[in-house]
């Protein structure tokens, strides 16, 4: 077990190091921060049932607008971060090299997963904490809601990453991995918007399956709900297990 833990850590470091080596990590962080800030300052959240004004129009010390955008921002960001995780390894042939090392499929999957998750956590902190500090300087910010929102966003990101990584493992081309992943996450995000046109029995189930209902209706408002934790963890476990199945299957094929 300790060897597997060690190899997982080794993969984690390797993946994270590779990410930091390229300028893309910095670019992604800066673009994400600028987009989130721009939406918060100038646009608000004019989408769906949840219409929120921008910071200056609303004049309220709250980060709800940023949190409302996060699930949609993840639809673009997470597939971009994960598309190369397996697809590139397969395309460049490094996957076979990886399989020759004494690293189990589970350790590889977990190492890659935690590397992306850690990086995304960093991106979230870098983009959102300075905003929170600024807003707290201008009004009475509810820090409980902010930390609840950040924790919820981190969990949501974990669930999305595990799904995206699994999809990445199914494709050889990065673009296919990106598109399929973005499509699936986009569908999950839009489930909350489509409930008005769905049959009622389906609407209820789809709304519950949507990450939106497990993030914005609870964590983004500072509420810890055990059902949300179960939802996110079950998605993570399912995604990682499927990913491991695919990788292990390929190793022995």
């Amino acid at each position, binding site marked *: 077990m300790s060897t597997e833990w060690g190899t997982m850590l080794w993969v984690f470091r390797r993946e994270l190091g590779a990410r930091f080596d*390229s300028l893309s990590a910095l670019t992604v962080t800066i673009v994400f921060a600028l987009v989130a800030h721009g939406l918060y300052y100038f646009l608000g959240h004019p989408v769906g049932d949840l219409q929120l004004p921008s910071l200056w129009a609303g004049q309220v010390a709250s980060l709800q607008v940023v949190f409302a955008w996060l699930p949609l921002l993840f639809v673009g960001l997470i597939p971009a971060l994960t598309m190369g995780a397996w697809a590139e390894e397969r395309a460049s042939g490094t996957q076979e090299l990886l399989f020759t090392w004494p690293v189990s499929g589970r350790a590889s999957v977990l190492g890659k997963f935690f590397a992306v998750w850690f990086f995304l956590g960093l991106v979230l902190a870098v983009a959102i904490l300075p*905003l929170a500090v600024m807003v707290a300087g201008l009004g009475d910010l509810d820090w409980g809601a902010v930390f609840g929102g950040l924790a919820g966003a981190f969990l949501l990101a974990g669930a999305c990453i595990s799904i995206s990584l699994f999809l990445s493992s199914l494709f050889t081309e990065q673009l296919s991995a990106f598109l399929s992943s973005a499509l699936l996450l986009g569908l999950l995000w839009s489930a909350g918007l489509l409930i008005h046109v769905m049959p*009622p029995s389906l609407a209820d189930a789809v709304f519950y399956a949507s990450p939106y209902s497990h993030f914005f209706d609870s964590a983004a408002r500072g509420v810890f709900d055990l*059902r949300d934790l179960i939802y996110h963890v079950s998605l993570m476990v399912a995604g990682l297990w499927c990913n491991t199945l695919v990788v292990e*299957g390929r190793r022995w094929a």
Partner: protein
Amino acid sequence: MSAKSMKRATQRWNAALSIALLVVIVVFVNDAARKHVSFKRDLSEDQLYAASPELEKRLGELDDVLVVRAFLTASPEQGAVQIAKSQLVSQLRDYEEASKGRIRLDFVDPNSSSEAKFEAVRLGIKPTQIAGNVATGGRGQEVWLGISLKYRGAERAIPLVMPQTLEYAFASELFRLMRGYTPKIGWFGPSQGLTPKAGDPTYVQARRVLQLAGELVDLETLSTSEGVPDDIDLLVVVRPDSLHPRAAFAIDQYLQGGGRAILALDNHHYSLSGQDLPAAHRVTGLEMLLDIWGVPLSKGILWDRNCVTVTTRNPVAGADGTVGDVLTKTDYTFWPSIDANGLAKDVPVTARLGGLVTYWTQAILEKTLPDGVRRIDLARSSDESWIVDAPNTVTFDPSLVRSQGIELSATAEPKSYPIVTALTGKLPSPFGFGKYPGAPKPLEFFDAVIGDKQWEGEVTDEAILSGVEEAHVVVMGDADWLRDGVQGYFFTPDNYGVYSASFLGSLVDWLLLEEDLVALRSRSPISRPLTDFLKVEREARELAGSAGTVNYDEAEVRTKSEDEAEAAASASRTSAMAAATGGSLLAAFLFVGLPGFLRTRRRSEFEVLDEANPKGGKS
């Protein structure tokens, strides 16, 4: 097929089956969690999204089984209603768990059970007609979203609930069931179901709030009856006008008997309809009481810089002869806007209220209080208020406001005045005993005849109560805030009246000693305004309280200082944004860019070492 390809196919099948099984497990686990897990903790300061401690406490105090019957349509055709229904079910299950077995929960659908439908109708629960879902070909549906609570033989119903209102409605009815009776609220004021004259204020919305809190009883007159009925738990007196001393006596004696009252008073009557009542100073008839209690009203009204900005549209002729509308914004200083700083923080009624707007308001002056009487000022005007003579007409004129502001600043120091005050204690009576100079002696007015009715009581000086029981009174220097909404002002669910209903409801609960309900009602988001840079800059430049005219002539009319203030405010906003975004960029370079740069540099150093020492060395 070769053995290898067969093996590969088998592996694929196994993988596909495993994934399908996993999906089923995930769905099953989440479905089970949805139905059986209800652990939830609200980490926010607002505490809006989890069962409140007050409700949990009351549920823990149940010493018998509470039967909760939810009359919910099983499958609403609209997805949004279906989700609301699911949330209601989830919330009720939370309550069931919090009660530790004292709640028996029962779900029925009146659309599919005639017995349930009959029972719902008997309890006054009615279905709501919702439009059909066009996308799914629905044709509309009667939806039931009602709840009944049964406890120790008594039963109460909530005809229509939504997730946002469930907790308060559930708790109200539960408290009443546990207490065993519904409080009676006496309404003594104008427009009691009669058709009001044009221009007269009506109070339909405020009365609706009172009806939610208890049984509303209209007291037609206090002058000719035997006073306030004994079974009235709370008396609400709204805009009394020249009350006969008998009515004042009835109110006084009700309070002497330990009564509770809200007195919303106006010495000046204004209207926005153009059919103004005379704005001259009027007499409420309660002046004696207020004076002896130590809370007299000012004769003039408050002029407050912190006020409502009114937008009016006036036609003007341009230079080319065309007529257009000019939009004028006036800081109408006779409508004080009380912000969170002006509200008492240590009283549950106002602790979490975001604000309150009052209209043509009298200040409650500060006088020596009778012995043992406690005074709490629930709402106060801003520090920049003056008491001025009430104007005869309603005029929205920014230049007039500006000149008044300059004149007032030059003549008197501004100060904050109480607008809503609560008194608790044994209040003295001005009647009888010769305690209050000028008060009519009881026999002088008890023998008088009003209309065709004679006062039936037999009252002597000795029979008059004074300072006997502890009374609770809330005196308000304004009654207009209770008026039905007009043009977005007064008692409206939006705009400036947004807090009125919450304030009135909380006040009633507080006076009825249902402080737990006050805590529940005030579970609205805490007001968290951002720094208003424009206000800060204007205050720094000592600009008058008028917002000025907003039209194409604006630039010409505005003073240089105002332009500077706006520019400075804009610069402050930009600085704030730049600071936050700059902070993010700096953090990105420090935590993402720098580690990457250091790794790359370290690797290139090793590469140089490798080149210099190709036969050995570590790299």
